[in-house]
């Protein structure tokens, strides 16, 4: 009896401590809606604030259970010390070594850990950091869903595609990979569904230095690889609200030199994360690191309190230090005008992008949700751009780009896949 009472006390204490822990976590998350929107005033773009004011978006606002700055890949953490003052930009915004003036063979982690606001190249350097932050996660293989959502129609349809990318910088192992073509990175997008689009594919070779990207597309209707012009980067992808250049960790995926960048502010903004806890990452049988996004998939399926059909209420919004960057395209035919990005100073990832048209009128806002991952043994850290949502306010239509179906970092992708011959083998 005495023993069982003691055991019962121990059990009850544990239960109490656990509920306290939960209570503490829950207490740190505040519901922000139209009744208390002032809480987040100044912490998100005006366009997004209006969503909260109108009830379109309801936020869960509070602290994460971890410091995301402590869960970056090891080589990124190391580069924050090793790369201080190591690189600079040329007049054409290419990266060169300060000591030699030449393009480096390999850049570990992020190239510019020490951004100074008075530096005329500061904004370009922030954008370069976002590129390398993605690259630091190594080769990626993901299953991506483009969801088309209308305000009145709700969910309309989906396009599914496979994404493959391989960086030649940023990622520690990439230093030893042969790279005679002097690529900065390569990637492929292959549509798998619906039937009439399946097989449509695009491959991008991005070179180091000042060379233009090379784009090739596979068109099932002609069963051939077709050379594409770089002019289409601001064109709608698959007719969605999302342009090719809207991708990327910094919410921009084009050539840095094709924009004029400027830091127009710094401060704090709320950034979106999936859950207060780290995502689980496990090694699969091929030695790759796979995110376990089952919880994310459950979250994405839930209808929350936001009145706009495209928002996910389960996103956790937390305050982060950001650069506010303005980008203006140099190409007079680029479909967007001015763009404002909110980029995390420490994590080098983007949270918001506000897009204006060429006449200067507001047009769209893009928000991102992130997944920070760690394995159970806490030996590796990864991060994933889990969900992009871009809202076209004129047409009241949105596209959500969702990678929760499968996301593998450190993927074992043979370089031959990114050759011209390899590209055609992906196709029917």
């Amino acid at each position: 009896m005495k023993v069982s009472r003691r055991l019962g006390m121990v059990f009850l204490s544990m239960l109490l401590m656990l509920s306290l822990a939960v209570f503490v976590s829950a207490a740190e998350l505040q519901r922000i809606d139209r009744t208390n929107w002032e809480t987040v005033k100044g912490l998100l773009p005006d366009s997004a604030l209006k969503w909260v004011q109108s009830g379109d978006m309801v936020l869960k606002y509070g602290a994460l259970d971890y410091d995301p700055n402590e869960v970056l890949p090891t080589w990124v953490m190391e580069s924050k010390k090793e790369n201080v003052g190591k690189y600079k930009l040329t007049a054409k915004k290419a990266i060169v070594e300060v000591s030699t003036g030449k393009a480096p063979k390999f850049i570990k982690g992020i190239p510019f850990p020490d951004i100074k606001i008075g530096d005329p190249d500061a904004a370009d350097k922030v954008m370069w950091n976002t590129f390398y932050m993605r690259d630091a996660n190594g080769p990626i293989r993901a299953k991506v869903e483009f969801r088309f959502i209308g305000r009145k129609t709700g969910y309309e349809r989906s396009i599914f595609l496979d994404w493959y990318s391989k960086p030649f910088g940023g990622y520690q192992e990439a230093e030893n990979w042969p790279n005679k073509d002097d690529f900065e990175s390569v990637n492929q997008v292959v549509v798998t569904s619906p039937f009439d689009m399946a097989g449509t594919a695009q491959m991008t070779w991005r070179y180091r230095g000042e060379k233009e990207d090379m784009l090739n597309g596979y068109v099932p209707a002609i069963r051939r690889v077709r050379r594409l012009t770089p002019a289409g980067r601001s064109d709608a992808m698959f007719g969605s609200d999302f342009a090719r250049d809207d991708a990327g960790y910094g919410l921009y995926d084009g050539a840095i030199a094709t924009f004029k960048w400027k830091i127009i502010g710094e401060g704090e903004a709320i950034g979106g994360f999936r859950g207060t806890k780290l995502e689980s990452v496990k090694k699969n049988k091929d030695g790759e690191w796979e995110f376990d996004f089952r919880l994310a998939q459950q979250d994405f399926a839930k209808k929350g309190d936001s009145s706009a059909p495209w928002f996910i209420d389960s996103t956790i919004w937390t305050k982060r230090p950001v650069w506010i960057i303005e980008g203006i395209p140099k190409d007079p035919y680029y479909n967007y005008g001015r763009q404002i990005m909110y980029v995390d100073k420490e994590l080098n990832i983007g949270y918001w992008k506000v897009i204006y048209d060429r006449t200067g009128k507001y047009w769209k806002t893009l928000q991102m949700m992130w997944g920070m991952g760690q394995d159970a043994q806490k030996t590796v850290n990864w991060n994933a751009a889990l969900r992009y949502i871009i809202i076209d306010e004129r047409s009241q239509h949105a596209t959500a780009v969702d990678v929760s179906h499968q996301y593998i970092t450190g993927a074992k992708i043979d370089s031959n896949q990114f050759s011209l011959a390899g590209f055609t083998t992906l196709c029917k």
Partner: protein
Amino acid sequence: MKVVKCSLVAFIFLLALALMQNTANAAYFQIGDNPLEVKGKFQARLSWRTVESEGFTFPHVARGNMVQERNLALIEFNQTLAKQTDTTAEVKYHLVGRFLYDGIYDYGPKAFKDVRNSNKAEIDNFKKDADVWEAYVDYTKGPVFFRVGRQNLSWGETDVFRLLDRINPLDDTFGGSFEDLDDRRIPIWMARGTYNLGNVGPISSLSLEGFLNPGMGDQKVSPMAPFGTPYAFPAPASSVPTRIHTPEKTFNSSRMGVRLQGVLADNFNFSLAQYQTITDSPAAVVTFDPAAAGGPVFQDLQYKTEWITGGSINFFEPHIGGVIRAEVAMFWNEPVFIPEINAPVLFGDYRTGDIPKKNVLRYMVGLDRNFWVRTLNDKSMFNVFFQYFAEYYPSYDDRMKIPLPKFPTGEFMKQVRYDQKLTMIAFTNYMDGTLTPQLVIAYDPRGSWMYIPSIQKFIDPWVFKVAYYGITGKPDVSVGILRDRDQASFTISRLF
């Protein structure tokens, strides 16, 4: 029998499961570690003639009559059996079943029912088909890739008309140039391999590709539309028996070839190819054989092999902001038609004809450009592809003809020494990519036009397409030969 029944039951079960999806997305069935992807489409197309028949076209069909009621079902299976790792190869398979039926011979205009009644066996065979359309296995390991099975292989840079892209035969019996090239391609059994050589000197992404479609097997050729079918060439019924000859079943009749492709100076994609194929159109020769049953005169249509040597290049030109592409090929010893040689009987010379051959040079220069017209579309670009095609006979013979008769004289149409065509394809999309208007134009400066405006709308899982196919111009010039085949079409597809 049991195995077949089980397979049929399994097939129907999978199909039913896939169709239960009310979206156009593929269905996945987990089999072991690797999901089996099942997808496909059902399609029905109705076409109506919009001009009166003329000349030698048979049967004469009045404007407004249905000329096509084509039903198509495609079901596709894809599965990766093994993923590529450091020590193992990637192996996957792809299987497409195709089912086809054109109903105009059964419930269309009386004219086509009469065509069927007068030629039941051939038309009944022609109007329907059920086939394993594509079936191949892919093997990939590092720089090596093999694809073995029934497949399509397309080389070159051209749209609308083929130039280097003549490996697979084409089925022009259900619409000819009115139809997308890919819909007309007939997959063939072949082994194909690619080896990525990587960087070699100034060339990057250099690869060597080869293919073999053995001549000893079932050699598929471009079929000819039976007399009286809506897309047959305008010609009177042959007054003599017609015999069709495919190439001999020997290795020498194989389709086979190699191609080298790569990138020069990080901008110029090029390819060089040498291959043997089988001509799309058979060579016509009149045989005089008094001893043969049904003779003494026969029209023999012989599919011949020919060698093609060619190359292509494309590059992005930043000053014009477009992609320039070009292709050139020499067709060695291509059969030509010189009536005095092919059909001496027609000139009172009672002997079997011969098939003369000429080298033909064909080339194309094209420009692809996309641009914004924001007043018309502020979300998606307009894509425009221009091409200039030319065909030249270096050793031209004034007697060369096209083996089709002019109406009403019956004399053969002239084959010119230098022929040219211009084409344009333009499209954009609206409504979040679900509405696609497109215009295709082909123009022969000697006096004929083909134009195909169309609009396609996707409402998941349905696709609706309305198109008009028009030809105008001289009836003995290029596409103008089919100028009385204008039609309007409505196509509905259910994707799964």
